[in-house]
């Protein structure tokens, strides 16, 4: 028997609803279990996630997340592109954290190359990463509040998100998937007038967060929907590999920005919001507090923005400045070489973890010495966090499952990759 059919036999032996018979045997034949298919096209699943739920009345007895509906094969595609060309492709995995995807990939490549990133570029990266974190949390808050029935939150959050996207368009030329972060730095310096706009946004954002808090934080309906609902302890979360705001909500302050500072995060003074119970309310409140901390980091970034180059001057890695193309033959040769073949990366492998809005986003890159990566893999936090759904929502109400899923903040583009 060939190995393919063995694999197929193993795949087909997995039953999708194994719990049905077990509970019916307990002498309660009149209780009937129902298997309900939530998704893949369901607004409450935040993407194309399919949940196979075994329901006892409206109590969730078993849950199977089924993924793969937006599988794009980006990791494989990146193997066929030179490092430079892989950046805009890799960016499209987790479509709410594009700066993070690009940065994890560029950071891994820079580690392999041994390239020093100028201080200004590091600050500009942090500036955009934190704006991206605010944007991602705003989308999460808007859609999650919508799941809980708070319609106006959605409009408020998307109003502020619009302001962040406007800033991205101004500095990077595109609202989403900006390919701003490049290997060795960033592609362009920030334009004139950008700083004032970011400052205006930073001045406004904390009051907006206060308004969100006025609406939601102590609201009795929100408390009843979220407080003490579907809690999970830090140890169990760690055993499942869950990171990010979910872990911090359970009281473990694990934050890679402080634990293993990268890209000059050690220069910034910010606090880590933690929860106590690890219930849905803590997950909500931790993220909301994180928005305020991100605003603080952005302001510190602007205050301490050092002068200097925005991309490394290593001509073997970064494109030469445009004005040199007309005057310097050497620059033109480097330009042609970098665009057509790209730079060669010494053989080796590296894992580069960063703190994305959803947890530890790690990029693994293996190089075989050529100009294309031999393997690119992303440890996407939403993928790992999703496996906590079933233990979290065991014996909870169906409505609480929707709330828990909202507080998990899965992004299916990142899960399926």
């Amino acid at each position, binding site marked *: 028997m060939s190995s393919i059919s063995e694999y197929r036999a193993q795949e087909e032996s997995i039953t999708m609803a194994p719990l049905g018979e077990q509970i019916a045997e307990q002498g309660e034949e009149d209780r009937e279990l129902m298997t309900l298919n939530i998704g893949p096209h369901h607004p409450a699943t935040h993407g194309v996630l399919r949940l196979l739920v075994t329901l006892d009345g409206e109590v969730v007895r078993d849950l199977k997340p089924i993924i793969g509906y937006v599988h794009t094969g980006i990791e494989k595609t990146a193997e066929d592109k030179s490092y430079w060309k892989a950046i805009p492709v890799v960016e499209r995995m987790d479509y709410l954290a594009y700066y993070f995807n690009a940065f994890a990939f560029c950071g891994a490549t820079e580690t392999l190359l041994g390239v020093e990133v100028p201080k200004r570029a590091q600050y500009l990266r942090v500036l955009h990463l934190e704006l991206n974190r605010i944007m991602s949390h705003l989308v999460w808050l808007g859609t999650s509040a919508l799941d809980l029935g708070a319609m106006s939150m959605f409009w408020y959050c998307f109003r502020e998100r619009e302001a962040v996207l406007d800033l991205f*368009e101004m500095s990077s030329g595109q609202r989403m998937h900006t*390919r701003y972060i490049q290997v060795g730095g960033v592609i362009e310096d920030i334009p004139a007038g950008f700083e004032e706009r970011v400052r205006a946004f930073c001045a406004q954002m904390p009051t907006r967060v206060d308004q969100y808090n*006025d609406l939601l934080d102590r609201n009795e309906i929100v408390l009843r929907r979220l407080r003490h609902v579907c809690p999970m302890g830090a140890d169990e979360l760690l055993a499942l590999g869950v990171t990010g705001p979910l872990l911090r909500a359970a009281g473990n302050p694990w934050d890679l920005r402080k634990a293993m500072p990268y890209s000059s995060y050690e220069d910034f003074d910010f606090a*880590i919001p933690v929860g106590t119970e690890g219930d849905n309310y803590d997950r909500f409140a931790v993220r909301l*507090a994180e928005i305020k901390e991100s605003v603080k980091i952005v302001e510190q970034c602007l205050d301490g923005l050092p002068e200097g180059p925005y991309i490394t001057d290593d001509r073997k890695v970064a494109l030469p400045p445009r004005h040199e193309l007309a005057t310097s033959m050497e620059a033109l040769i480097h330009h042609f070489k970098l665009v057509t073949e790209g730079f060669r990366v010494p053989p080796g492998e590296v894992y580069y973890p960063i703190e994305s809005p959803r947890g530890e986003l790690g990029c693994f890159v293996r190089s075989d010495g050529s100009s294309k990566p031999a393997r690119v893999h992303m440890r996407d936090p939403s993928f790992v966090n999703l496996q906590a759904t079933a233990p979290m929502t065991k014996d909870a109400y169906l409505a609480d499952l929707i709330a828990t899923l909202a507080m998990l903040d899965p992004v299916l583009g990142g899960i399926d990759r």
Partner: protein
Amino acid sequence: MAWPPTPQELITVSAPSPGGAGGAYRAFGETLRGLKTTMARVFEGIHTIQYPEEKVPVYPRFRGRHRLHRFEDTGLEKCVGCSLCAAACPADCIRVVAAENTPEHRISAGERYAAVYEINLSRCIFCGYCEVACPFDAITMGQDYEMSDYSRSDLIFTKEMLLAEPLDRTPLRAEGE
């Protein structure tokens, strides 16, 4: 900064348990506070715009539909058919076929010119690498973002379409706007 973080570096979030006497207060007091917040937003004015009658102006760095350029004085095409844009394209949506210029049939300023220049806009991801790669500034990303069409074949833009002056459909943001 060291790990583990000091207690000063942590913000502990907390909330009361729902229900009870506090719950009875919150059911009215907090709801009223929320309503006040919502009502106060009325005076902030309208944040939406009436698209497509009104359009959002784009920033100078915005990457919209591509344009090919000519020299203003001679009218010759800037593109010399070097295919660097096609090499840089991560989506492989650009096709360039180069041909030789002759003295009686001169198209571009260089030795060669692009006999065929096609961009498949249904594949383009608007990363702008073509613009970065072009050593002669022959291709740039314009400000047009309204590109939807009824058939896919209409989204393959030929050289003539890319060289033509684009319809002024989407405004550019003025200085300080």
